[in-house]
């Protein structure tokens, strides 16, 4: 069995196991936890496509999340469009914004901290715009009326949402699996590791990075649309604020960048942590950010390859007994 087949089998197993959770338990707390962990996985996985595989560290992925969320809400409220039809519009809209930002930044060769700053700035610009124009509801935000029915992509139980977001996560995992085993992924990682060397052997870095930001943004848009369906509310702070951007990158970095399962692990670990601390400290505002920061520092120092790299580094320690001299 090749590694690609093993990964596909892993994804299938994951889909079946998580998909069965609502059949096993009716506990709202458990279902809510699994659903939110999957949602965190989705945004971590989306960030991982551009950041982990492409080496382009975005600090403003909320830009795509918020765009997806607003399109999902506005299409229903002002366009009278069914939520299921709005979803692909939200995904496409977010992808377009991604392509636009990518075309601007990659055309001028922005990378590293400059790319991070520009993405952060774009998200902030959109946040302020969303606060000041009318069709986003300004500071009041947008409320999507509650009309519980599967036809409206609104569910009475968390189970329905869980299955929807699971489908999105599985799709993101399949894309990641394709990145790990296909030409486009090989090119993307080559550009991440050394852009000049990649160019010398025939890779067009601009096109590769542009495609990556488009795909990454599309999944962020899906996450934004999902958020609106679950909470029936969106405002500028939630949509374009830094919280989502930070959550996406921290989960991916903690879990292990450029890996298939790293973002899943990272999202679950962080989610467990923030739930635990919420129980310990109550709803202390910003406590989860403090925890994220601490965990990030610890992980970067002790586990630079993330939680997914843990098994690997233990193995390396074991075999490094002989000692390398370089």
């Amino acid at each position: 069995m090749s590694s690609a087949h093993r990964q596909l089998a892993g994804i299938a197993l994951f889909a079946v196991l998580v998909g069965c959770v609502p059949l096993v338990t009716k506990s709202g707390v458990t279902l809510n936890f699994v659903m939110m962990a999957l949602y965190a996985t989705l945004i971590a996985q989306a960030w991982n496509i551009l950041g982990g595989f492409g080496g382009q560290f975005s600090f403003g992925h909320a830009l795509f999340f918020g765009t997806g969320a607003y399109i999902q809400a506005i299409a229903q409220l002002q366009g009278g469009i069914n939520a299921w039809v709005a979803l692909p519009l939200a995904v496409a809209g977010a992808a377009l914004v991604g392509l636009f930002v990518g075309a601007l930044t990659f055309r001028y060769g922005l990378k590293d901290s400059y790319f991070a700053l520009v993405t952060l700035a774009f998200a902030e610009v959109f946040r302020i715009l969303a606060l000041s124009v009318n069709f986003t509801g300004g500071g009041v935000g947008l409320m999507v009326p509650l009309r519980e029915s599967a036809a409206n992509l609104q569910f009475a139980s968390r189970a329905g949402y869980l299955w929807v977001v699971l489908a999105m996560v599985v799709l993101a995992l399949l894309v990641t699996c394709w990145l790990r085993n296909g030409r486009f992924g090989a090119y993307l990682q080559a550009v991440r590791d050394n852009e000049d060397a990649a160019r010398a052997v025939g890779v067009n870095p601009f096109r590769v990075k542009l495609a990556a930001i488009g795909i990454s943004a599309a999944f962020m848009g899906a996450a934004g649309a999902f958020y609106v369906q679950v909470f029936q509310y969106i405002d500028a702070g939630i949509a374009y604020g830094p919280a989502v951007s930070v959550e996406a990158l921290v989960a991916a970095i903690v879990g292990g960048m450029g890996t298939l399962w790293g973002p899943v692990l990272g999202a679950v670990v962080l989610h467990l942590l923030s739930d635990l601390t919420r129980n310990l400290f109550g709803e202390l505002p910003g406590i989860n950010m403090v925890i994220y920061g601490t965990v990030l520092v610890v992980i970067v120092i002790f586990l630079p390859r993330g939680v997914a790299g843990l098994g690997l580094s233990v193995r390396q320690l074991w075999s490094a007994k002989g000692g390398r001299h370089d």
Partner: protein
Amino acid sequence: MTEALLAVGGLSRSFGGLKAVQDVSLSVKEGSLSALIGPNGAGKTTLFALMSGFLKPDAGSVRFAGQDITGREPHRNALLGMTRTFQIVKPFAAQTVRENIAVGAHLHQRGRREALAHAEAIALRVGLAPQLDKPASDLTVAGRKRLELARALATRPRLLLLDEVLAGLNPQEIAEMMPVVRGIADSGVTVLMIEHVMQAVMHLAEHVWVLAQGQLIAEGSPAQVTSDDKVVEAYLGHGTAARLRKAASGVQA
């Protein structure tokens, strides 16, 4: 007579006040193995960058396989069949040797399995087969030089621009690497190499260009250029050629 595979005409490029390459013209015949030599800072690597598209020339033209490719992007040149390597090796450090070479192989092979298989065949040719599954970061300097060569070779180039593939290797490693380069040329790939290791230039190259302070000062067979006064003086300083001759004739007398 057929047109040269690579023809460079009047190529110039400055960086601020420094004229790195001035009015260089040369043409590389299809199927040849030739070398570009010159003292440090002569502009050899800049010339390579101008040919392969990493830098745009201020003046002059580059023609490859009958097309004007002046200032064209390197990835498009690679698709046409011109691939360069780097003096300062640039491995994709996080990936295995096999994956590194496969990136080059993907230029003409979409499928992952075919690219990986081609990578393995290339590794065999350059003597990297035992290291295929190691991360590129674990390779020695000699190994990285081979990897640089292998990755370029995997793109199935018509013209290979090798930038000091022998630099930093010990004599034994050089002796191992020379037949590899010879083998590549014998398989029909045109090779132009920048090289400081004169032993290799004398053994391998059919034709040599000498660059000093951005200008071509001599060309010809290895024996011709090494006995050229201007070349000797470029390496050893002004007036050296005359002094050496005097010393030699003094010994004879």
